[in-house]
């Protein structure tokens, strides 16, 4: 029976071309939506890798106009000491502009470059997987110390230990530790690969992470601001909470998915109505055929099954072509996403299209089954 129906639908492919095309486009849009959904969901399920609650980030522009190393060091040490002396301030760290949830990156060959001082892991409570974080011991080290994250370690060294290995173009950096992956770009983004670099003594900092106690109140924020302003009279100072920045970056991540989902919804409604209409039209147009099939031995259920099967065959034609295009994404490693994400998205799209077709063809199929054979043959 299946071969018979397939042959019949194949012979009618020109008549069904528009419907097949519509289902194909829907499949591809669904594939895009599901790829995003699966990717976001798999990232969402992974741990954040750091603590962002009760962490503030202070930005200040051009804090000091000197290039003298000693003066710079003294200035930033004193500033740190004074902020830390405030009640409810637990830890402080200077870092580069790409603070967590900052929506800006400093990348080198696809690896995030982060400058972070000795207090960074204490502020963000980042877990160490191997070795250690920066400390005063590194002031006198022969090589420039570097900490890498777990993803980079696995790419470079697999399961081997990374501590002690050299990095950089001239092998001038020595890995002293490996930290857990951190989702600095929000809940829905992947951790990516990252290196953490200890600042030089002549670096000018413009960003400070402040870990405060859970009891910290807006008054403390005011006092932090005043302290910073007291030190940097000509600076623009801004204090943000990482919890707010997380909400904001998550919102931006969801926007493309929401837009695609809306487009997808319209397409699905279109396909559903199209399918419903075509099948409804088919019942009326093919009453003679339905009557004939009943006359030669088809039960009402067999007629219903036939109409549903025909719709599923059309969907299969669309899905086959759609899968051919979709499978190119993991094969060609487009967008550098894991192949599993694409495969899951293809499977979900296939299931969704079949489910949609089944739903849309079920009622017309039942209507066809209810047609009395003599009436159907007479109308022809």
């Amino acid at each position, binding site marked *: 029976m299946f071969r*018979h129906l397939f*042959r019949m639908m194949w012979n009618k492919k020109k008549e069904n071309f528009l419907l097949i095309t519509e289902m194909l486009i829907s499949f591809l849009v669904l594939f895009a939506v599901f790829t995003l959904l699966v990717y976001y969901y798999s990232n969402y399920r992974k741990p954040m890798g750091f603590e962002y609650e009760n962490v503030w980030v202070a930005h200040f522009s051009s804090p000091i106009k000197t290039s003298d190393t000693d003066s710079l060091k003294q200035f930033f040490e004193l500033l740190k000491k004074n902020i830390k002396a405030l009640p409810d301030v637990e830890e402080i760290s200077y870092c580069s502009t790409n603070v967590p949830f900052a929506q800006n990156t400093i990348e080198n060959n696809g690896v995030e470059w982060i400058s972070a001082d000795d207090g960074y892991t204490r502020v963000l409570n980042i877990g160490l997987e191997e070795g250690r974080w920066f400390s005063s011991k590194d002031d006198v080290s022969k090589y420039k110390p570097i900490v890498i994250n777990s993803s980079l370690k696995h790419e470079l060294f697999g399961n081997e230990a990374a501590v002690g290995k050299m990095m950089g173009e001239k092998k001038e950096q020595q890995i002293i530790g490996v930290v857990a992956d951190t989702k600095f770009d929000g809940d829905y983004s992947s951790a990516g690969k990252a290196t953490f670099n200890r600042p030089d003594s002549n670096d000018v900092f413009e960003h400070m992470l402040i870990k405060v106690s859970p009891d910290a109140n807006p008054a403390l924020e005011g006092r932090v601001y005043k302290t910073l302003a007291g030190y940097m009279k000509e600076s623009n100072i801004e204090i943000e909470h990482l919890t707010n920045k997380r909400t904001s970056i998550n919102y931006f991540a969801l926007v493309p998915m929401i837009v695609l989902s809306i487009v997808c919804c319209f397409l699905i409604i279109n396909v559903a109505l199209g399918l419903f209409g075509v099948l409804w039209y088919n019942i009326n147009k093919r009453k*003679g*055929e339905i009557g004939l099939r009943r006359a*030669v*031995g088809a039960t*009402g*259920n067999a007629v219903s099954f036939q109409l549903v099967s025909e719709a599923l065959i059309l969907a299969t034609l669309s899905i086959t072509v759609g899968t051919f295009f979709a499978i190119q994404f993991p094969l060609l490693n487009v967008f550098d996403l894991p192949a599993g994400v694409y495969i899951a998205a293809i499977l979900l799209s296939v299931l969704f299209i079949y489910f949609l077709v089944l739903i849309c063809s079920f009622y017309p199929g039942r209507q066809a089954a209810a047609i009395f054979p*003599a009436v159907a043959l007479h109308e022809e």
Partner: protein
Amino acid sequence: MIQLQNVEKVYRTDTVETMALNNISLSIAKGEFLSIMGPSGCGKSTLLNIMGLLDSPTKGGIRIDEQKTEQLSDKALAGFRNKKLGFIFQSYHLINDLNVLDNVELPLLYRKSSAKERRDLATEALGKVGLSNRVKHFPTQLSGGQKQRVAIARAIVGQPEIILADEPTGNLDSAMGNEIMDILLQLNKNEGTTIVMVTHDEHMARKTHRLVRLFDGSQVI
């Protein structure tokens, strides 16, 4: 082979009640070739549909091969039609999206048979109606006479004991009509198939064993 007892068929709408068949009792023997004649709207096709279990009588009963059919379920009726009955229609009722061979195979799809078995039986049936050279053609590529021969092949492919033909020559010229009639006569003579044929053509009806005339839903001969 077929017994109709006091069969009545009434079509009802909200305002009108039409008596299509009125107290028809008829017995058709195995191997008989019966023709039904009468003016348009006298109930010929309704009677044929009732005999073919495509429609149910309002009153009365029908037995086919000693089997009461009133209480049969949809599935049992479908099986009965598939195995015992073959249909030929005035307008052929061929599926234009299937080639000749696939059209003829159609009844066999609703019974247990392998693809090869279906193909062999369909080819054999097409041979009997002289269309072995047209198996890959589509209905739109055939003449009216050829289409009706395909319809006959489809009706006999399942080797039914009864063939019900509703004006099989109605759409054909006399030469083509005679050809179709000859095929039906051969089937009746050689295979012993019971045939009930509705016709408007007196000349064709005279070639059959018995003639039944209907008028306003009642049997007059």
